[in-house]
């Protein structure tokens, strides 16, 4: 109170404190310009329920081999669209497994619904857009337990082109909101 009285009596002291007075105004302006939390969260996506793909020992090299698993992809948007991009651990992101004194090429397919054994073939580091998810919870704990299918395929031609031995690699999946 004494301080306020001093400022009112002393214009110079009053002028030196203009910044604190407009700070709330600046803060309000900053908040107004920020996207609303709801709008930011609407762009949130999540990919989960991922499991490894173990083909074991492939003895028949004349037939294609594939493994499919159900994935949870969640999009917080009112219209839950998303896009996916896959990158392999081969040279330049190629879908190849390493080992056995060489490489083993594989194919990646994606389906926007679960339980599928085939889907759209993905190319390394190329985005597949226009996808929709039925997941209603980020971890698919409620609603559908999964919302998409990831299929890994070893083509016979690739099996025959690879040297015998054990192969391993990592496939990275990047989901973004659409």
């Amino acid at each position, binding site marked *: 109170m004494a301080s306020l009285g001093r400022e009112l009596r002393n214009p110079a002291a009053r002028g030196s404190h203009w910044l604190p007075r407009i700070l709330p105004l600046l803060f309000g302006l900053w908040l107004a310009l920020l996207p609303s939390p709801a709008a930011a969260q609407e762009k949130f996506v*999540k990919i989960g329920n991922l499991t490894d793909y173990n083909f074991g020992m492939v003895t028949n090299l004349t037939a294609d081999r594939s493994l499919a698993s159900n994935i949870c992809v969640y999009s917080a948007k009112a219209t839950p669209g998303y896009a996916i991009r896959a990158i392999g651990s081969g040279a330049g992101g190629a879908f190849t497994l390493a080992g056995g004194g060489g490489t083993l090429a594989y194919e990646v397919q994606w389906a926007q619904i679960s339980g599928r054994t085939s889907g759209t073939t993905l190319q390394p580091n190329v985005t597949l857009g226009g996808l929709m998810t039925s997941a209603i919870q980020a971890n698919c704990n409620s609603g559908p337990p999964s919302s998409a299918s990831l299929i890994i395929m070893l083509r016979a031609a690739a099996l*025959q082109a*690879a040297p015998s031995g054990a192969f391993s690699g990592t496939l990275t999946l990047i989901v973004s909101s659409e």
Partner: protein
Amino acid sequence: MYVNRLARHLPAALLIATTFAGTAQAATDGSLGATSTGSVVINASVAGRVQISKLSDVTFSAVDPGTAQQRAQSVCVWSNTAGGKYNITARGDGTANAFTLGATGLTAVPYSVEWAQTTGQTAGTALTTGTALTGQASLATSPTCASGPATSASLIVKMAAATLQTMQAGAAYSGTLTLVVAPE
């Protein structure tokens, strides 16, 4: 004291081990965000396999018994092992798998078999029935040589003049030679 030190460092060691084990060998889920990145590990093993193809029948027809005869053919042997390594075993259909040709009512006559690991050869390593010739290597890049080299090895079948001279003119001699290829 040593035990105390071990106990003190054990949790950290376990954490490090678990962390590295997780990143190298297990799928990881993404987190909720503007983008979400997950990963899966893919493991596969390819069994060692071989294939022999492009075999043709061998015919000695109306040959001059005064001259030794041989028939060579280029065949395809493919192996997916390191270096295309394989071994080959040949068996005839004579007594005890002997390399012989038979004719009804006549004495069986012998022939010899040679193998070369390159194509276009007219001589190679003599094979003994039932005994694997090891250390062979193939340049074939597809199981039936549909792409890459058209053939990768040579099979040579020979009949000695002395044998031809024991054969009855006009009689039909026949036999089957079985070739077994295995990865090495």
